[in-house]
């Protein structure tokens, strides 16, 4: 699903955010990306969504060569990746329903019934079906983050990226959010989560990557994935 070959990223000014990173993530895997802030976690996610361009190496996502993708193909590439942000990036002047519907509208979904069905399915999955008419500001932090997740999964992308999705949440809510990610993995979605909440991560027995100063310094793979759930 996701392959990085010798990927490096150097910013103008000389800062090297990633140094020759090699990585392969298979379809249906759930992988944690750890490391201190500034280690290159966000950079890696930005390269995958082509918000930024690699300085060297190659990134393949679902068979698409992201590093050599034309400008024209970038929007559609992003539609095949669900992204969850630390600060959820919901639009405050739109209802929960309209926020979640945005990726579908952008993708040209024009049948209202289909739109409604998909949005409700996504909201149902995150347990907020009864809040579709609310505005994001009237929701709690945990609820807002779940709306963000519903928006990321509404058009059923095969790859889900999350950048510190629980950064602003207390431990109980964080666990709920991670359980939600687990449920997506169980239906075959590939999930890559950047987080430094090690305590929480270790309680899930999943593959863990560690970045330090732009180097991938460890790749922990549990022996039997099901054992510690």
């Amino acid at each position, binding site marked *: 699903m996701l392959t990085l070959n010798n990927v490096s990223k150097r910013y103008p000014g000389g800062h090297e955010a990633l140094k020759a990173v090699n990585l392969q993530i298979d379809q249906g895997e759930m992988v944690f990306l750890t490391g201190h802030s500034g280690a290159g976690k966000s950079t890696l996610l930005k390269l995958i969504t082509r918000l930024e361009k690699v300085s060297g190496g190659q990134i393949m996502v679902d068979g698409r060569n992201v590093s050599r993708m034309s400008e024209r193909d970038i929007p*559609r590439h992003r539609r095949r990746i669900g992204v969850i942000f630390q600060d959820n990036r919901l639009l405050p002047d739109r209802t929960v329903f309209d926020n979640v519907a945005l*990726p579908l509208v952008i993708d040209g979904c024009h049948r209202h019934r289909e739109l409604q069905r998909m949005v409700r399915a996504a909201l149902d999955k995150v347990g907020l079906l009864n809040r579709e008419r609310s505005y994001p500001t009237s929701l709690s932090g945990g609820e807002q983050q779940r709306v963000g997740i519903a928006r990321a999964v509404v058009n059923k992308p095969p790859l889900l990226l999350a950048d510190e999705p629980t950064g602003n949440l207390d431990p109980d809510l964080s666990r709920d959010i991670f359980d939600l990610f687990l449920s997506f993995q169980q239906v075959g979605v590939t999930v890559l989560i950047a987080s430094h909440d090690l305590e929480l991560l270790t309680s899930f027995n999943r593959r863990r990557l560690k970045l330090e100063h732009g180097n991938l310094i460890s790749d922990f793979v549990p022996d039997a994935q099901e054992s510690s759930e």
Partner: protein
Amino acid sequence: MRKNRANKPVKRRQNRRKKPGGASLRSEQLRPPIGRAFVAFWVAHVLAFFHGLGRLAREPFGSLLTITIIGIAMALPVGLHLVLKNMQGLAEGWNDATQISLFLNPSMTLKDVPTLQGRIEAQVGKIRIEAKGPEAALDEFKQAVGVSEAVKVLGENPLPVVLILYPEPDMDPAALEAMTSTLQALPEVDLAQLDLRWIQRLHAIAHLGERATLILASLFSIAVLLTIGNSARIEVERRREEIAVEKLVGATTAFIRRPFLYSGFWLGLAGASTAIMLITLATLLLDGPVRELLRLYDNDSLLSGIDFTLGATVLLAGVSLGIVGSLIAVNRQLRRIEPDW
């Protein structure tokens, strides 16, 4: 991290690959089938059409301000154009009164006129001729100048017979000049006089006015373009976060731009309609005084306002300026918004 196998580079697990020949898939897989894309294209336009209108409605005061400015800016050149058009209509009415006066030599009397008329028509073709004897001319002279006492002193009437010729109204000035010289050459004619200069001046003024209208229209078009561009720019700035999020979830530039272009369309349309309303209002207000003025000039032509062609042109110009203005501003502005998180 007890089980962490540190410093081990990357674990590759090929066994769970599910896509056969996955790496060879091309970017074409991203593009939807053409039929679906076609329907989606039109649906997106219809949505943006109303979305653009909705955005304006959400900022009623600002939109009204912009629309009024556009309306006034467009009304000025259109108004000047109408003033000129009316002036030309007036001038055409006067052209009808273009005349050549033939002052005959003193030996000629009114009895000689029919014979002379035959000779004149042999020279210049069929023409309407009015003859004025010395008595009638003197009476007119007295009334017009108010010098009846002075005329009395003269004792005898010094005025000759005058023939007034009315050429066809569509004759151009050069042909009229030529006709006048032909008539001057007749032995019975002392003086043939054609008064053309005021018509020529009027035409020159109208020509100048046309040029001025064109310059004014260009300047005000730029003003409209800038006004609409500026309101689009402010709108993009206000929606910076929304645009960033849309880019993040895979919106194309065309998708993001579309509602702004339709907002420009609506602003241009509303501004042009306002201009038409303003002009119509002005025409109604001016109708009374102009009628009075025309009556004094013995002209019964009506004040002409905006007709269908002019109205359609104004609307088309407004809409085009609206779309182009927002296109330029939005393109410039969107490039500066790079999504980030």
